[in-house]
C-alpha cells in the first residue's frame, strides 16, 4: 500500500493508505479528526471542505495520495492553543450562523479561504456567490453571510474581534 506523508494542523503524519482512500477518510478514520464531515459524498454539499496548502478543497473528492507532501488544515486546526477562536469561528458564534452544526466546519473553512482571497471588502452578493459550494439546510444562510461579512473586517484588520 502507498505511504502518504503530510502535515495536518501543523503535525507531521506518515500513513499507509489504499490508493482509493479519500483525503476525508484519512482525516476521519486514520487520524481521528472527525470535525470534517461527509454529507453528500459527491462533492456537492461542502461539509467536507478542508484547506490543502492554504486553499479550500472538497476532501471527499480528493485522493489521500494526492495530498502527499501537502499541508492540510481542518476545523480542528483553527483555534489557538489556548482555545481562542479563529475570527471566523468567533463571528459564527456571535452572529448565530449555525443551527444543527453539520455544515459548519465546511462552511467555516470555505469562508476563511473566501476572505483570504478577497482583500477588498466583499459585498453581500459576493459573499453569497463565494459560498455557493456549501449547503446549509437550517439557517437560510442569512446569519452565515452576516458572520462572514463581520469576520472579513477582523481578518483584514479593519475591525476588532467579537468578544
Amino acid at each position, binding site marked *: 500500500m502507498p505511504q502518504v506523508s503530510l502535515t495536518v494542523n501543523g503535525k507531521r503524519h506518515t500513513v499507509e493508505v489504499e490508493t482509493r482512500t*479519500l483525503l476525508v477518510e484519512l482525516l476521519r478514520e486514520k487520524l481521528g479528526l472527525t470535525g470534517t464531515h461527509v454529507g453528500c459524498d*459527491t462533492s456537492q454539499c461542502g461539509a467536507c*471542505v478542508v484547506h490543502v496548502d492554504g486553499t*479550500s478543497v472538497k476532501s471527499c473528492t480528493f485522493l489521500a495520495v494526492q495530498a502527499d507532501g501537502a499541508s492540510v488544515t481542518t476545523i480542528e486546526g483553527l483555534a489557538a492553543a489556548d482555545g481562542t477562536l479563529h475570527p471566523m469561528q468567533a463571528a459564527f458564534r456571535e452572529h448565530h450562523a449555525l443551527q444543527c452544526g453539520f455544515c459548519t466546519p465546511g462552511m467555516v473553512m470555505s469562508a476563511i479561504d473566501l476572505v483570504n482571497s478577497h482583500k477588498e471588502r466583499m459585498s453581500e*452578493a459576493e459573499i453569497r456567490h463565494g459560498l455557493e459550494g456549501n449547503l446549509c439546510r437550517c439557517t437560510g444562510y442569512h446569519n452565515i453571510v452576516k458572520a462572514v461579512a463581520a469576520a472579513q473586517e477582523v481578518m483584514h484588520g479593519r475591525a476588532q474581534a467579537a468578544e
Partner: protein
Amino acid sequence: MNLFEYVRPASLAEAIAAGAAPGAAFLAGGTNLLDLMKGGIARPSRLVDLTRLPGLGAIERGPEGGVRIGALVRNADLAHDPDFAQRFPAVAEALLSGASAQLRNAATVGGNLMQRTRCAYFYDPASACNKRDAGAGCAARGGERRLAAVLGASEQCIATHASDFCVPLAALDAVVEIAGAAGTREVALEDFHLLPGATPERESVLAPGELILAVRLPAAAAAFARHARYLKLRERTSYAFAVVSAAAALRIEAGAIVEGRIALGGVAAKPWRARGAEAVLSGQKPERALFRRAAEAALAEARPVGDNGFKIELARRIVARALALAAAGTPARLPALPASPFAPVPGGPHG
C-alpha cells in the same frame, strides 16, 4: 470505488507511456473523475497522476499578445489572474460561472476540457448508455429529455457537454496543444470535442496516451476585451450546470460591429460555435433587433428531442441577451461576478 494502481510519472514521456496502457486514466484535479469512480461509472485499473509534472502550470503571455495556459493551471488561478481577466474577460466570467470555489481550486484547464457529460443516464449504471458502454443503447432517448442536446445529436446519443470555460474558448479561436508518443500536435478547440454520431464513446480527438499540454488564445482574441460576456441560464441561480449558455464578443468601431463572435453551451455534445450568427452581425449597428436576428441564425439548425423545444427558444434569448450585455460593455470590475439572466438588459426591456 475499485482498487487501482497509482503512478506518479516524473516526465511527460513517462506519463504518455503510462497513460497509453489499456484501462489507464489520467488524473489531474479529479473533481469529475473521482465522482465517476465513486459511482462505478469509471473503473480505471491505473491512475496516472499528472499534477506533479513540471512545466504545465504557467500562464504565459505570448510575444504577439496571445496567452498560453498550461494544462495544470487551476480554474481559480486563471479566473483571478488580473492580466488574463482583463484581456479575456468572458473566459474569466465563464470560469466563475462553473462549479464552486473549492472545485475551481482543484479543477484544471486540461481537466475542464476532458470532463464527461452530466446526462443522468450516463451517471446511472443501471441505464443503457452508448457513451459508457458502446452499443448498449440510449436510455435517454425514451426517457427524461428536458436537458438533452438540440444541436448535433444522433440516434445513439443526445447528451450535452457541460463546460462553461470551453464556450468562450470556442468563440475566441482557442487552440489545444496535445502531446503523445508521436510528438506534439495542435487542434482548434472547436474541433477538439467530437459530435456523437455512431460512436458517442469517443468524445475528443485524443488517442490513448495523448494528453493536453496547454490551451492557447491568439492575440486577436484580446481585441474583444471591451465587449465580451458569458451568460448562463441554470435551473437555480448558482452552482448548477447550464440549461443553455452563450459567450458573446464584439469589436465595435465608430458605432458599428466590425466582428462578432458567438458560441453556445448546454446545447450539444461540444461547445457550439455559431458562425452563421456571427455573419449576421458584421458591419451592422449593435441593436436589439439585430441581436434577435443573430440569435435566430444561431439556432437555425436546432431540433428538439421529445419535449425540450423550450431549450431552443431559451437559447435564442440567451444569445440575444449576451450580445446586448457585450454591446453595453465589459464590467469595470474583473473578474465579474457571473452575469444574471434575470437582470435588466442595458438599453432594453426583458427579452
